[in-house]
């Protein structure tokens, strides 16, 4: 079930990137980022209002849990640097490499609240196929 959700998230991200790309071409990367976050803020505020959800701020929440939004904007900044110096394909491929390595490290050590999933050497074959696939997609 959660696998299906993940596929769906991927579908939504593709469409989102397409729409956000049009916005960035028209307005520039940073104005687009501000508009996208502004619209998102309005939408999630509407959801909270309609569902009458109250926000309880617990004092004992570590501050770093609030920086997810910052990281998202840094992703945009770093991607912009990549796109302008390396081109689209290489930036995307490196981004996927970064995602893969970060995911494996998080799983292996059980970081950020994740359950520990140790990396097994047998999985290298699968990893090589995945990397090869990404390279082929990037080159063509």
């Amino acid at each position, binding site marked *: *079930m*959660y*696998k299906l*959700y*993940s*596929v*769906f*998230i*991927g579908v*939504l*991200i*593709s*469409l989102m990137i*397409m*729409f*956000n790309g049009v916005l960035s071409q028209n*307005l520039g*990367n*940073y104005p687009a*980022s501000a*508009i*996208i*976050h*502004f619209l*998102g*803020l309005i*939408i*999630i505020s509407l959801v*909270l209002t309609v569902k009458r*959800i109250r926000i*309880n*701020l617990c004092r004992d*929440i570590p501050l770093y849990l609030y920086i*997810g*939004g*910052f990281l*998202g904007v840094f992703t945009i900044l*770093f991607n912009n*640097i*990549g796109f302008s110096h*390396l081109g689209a394909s290489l930036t995307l491929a*490196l*981004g*996927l490499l*970064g*995602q*893969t390595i*970060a*995911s494996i490290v*998080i799983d292996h050590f059980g970081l*950020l*609240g*994740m359950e520990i999933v140790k990396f097994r050497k*047998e*999985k290298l074959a699968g*990893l090589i*196929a995945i990397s*090869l696939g990404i390279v082929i997609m*990037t080159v*063509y």
Partner: protein
Amino acid sequence: MILAVLVSSLAGALIVIARNINSLLAERIGLFPGTLFNYITGLALSIVFLFISGEAARLSFGSLEAVPFEAYLGGLLGVAVVVLSNIVTSKISAFYMSLIIFAGQLFTGIIIDYFVLGLLSAGKVIGGSLVVAGLVYNLRLDGRPIEKQK
């Protein structure tokens, strides 16, 4: 050049780290309030970058009106992505979530290219199939379902 390679890879790593941090926050304060804070902090930093980059002048009512309406749908989709990610992140391993999302993106991209541009890229289909094959192979190696009982 090397710096560009480093920050491009870091951009990918940050996606995963942000996803996990957002989901931890959502577990503590609730799914939708957690999403709200993602947008509050994101908008704040976007505005800072907007002024530092000197692109603020490109924003005007005229320029906003000139953009086709559907381009603004990305903001809505972004919220759906954050909410759904907050639900899924703690349930399956970070690695499989990243790859399954990637596979979904990949095939949507191929379908969009086909219907919008009339293009069917052999390289993308072959490369994408390899990615999915490697993913399925590794999933089977696990010998157990990746969904955790929680």
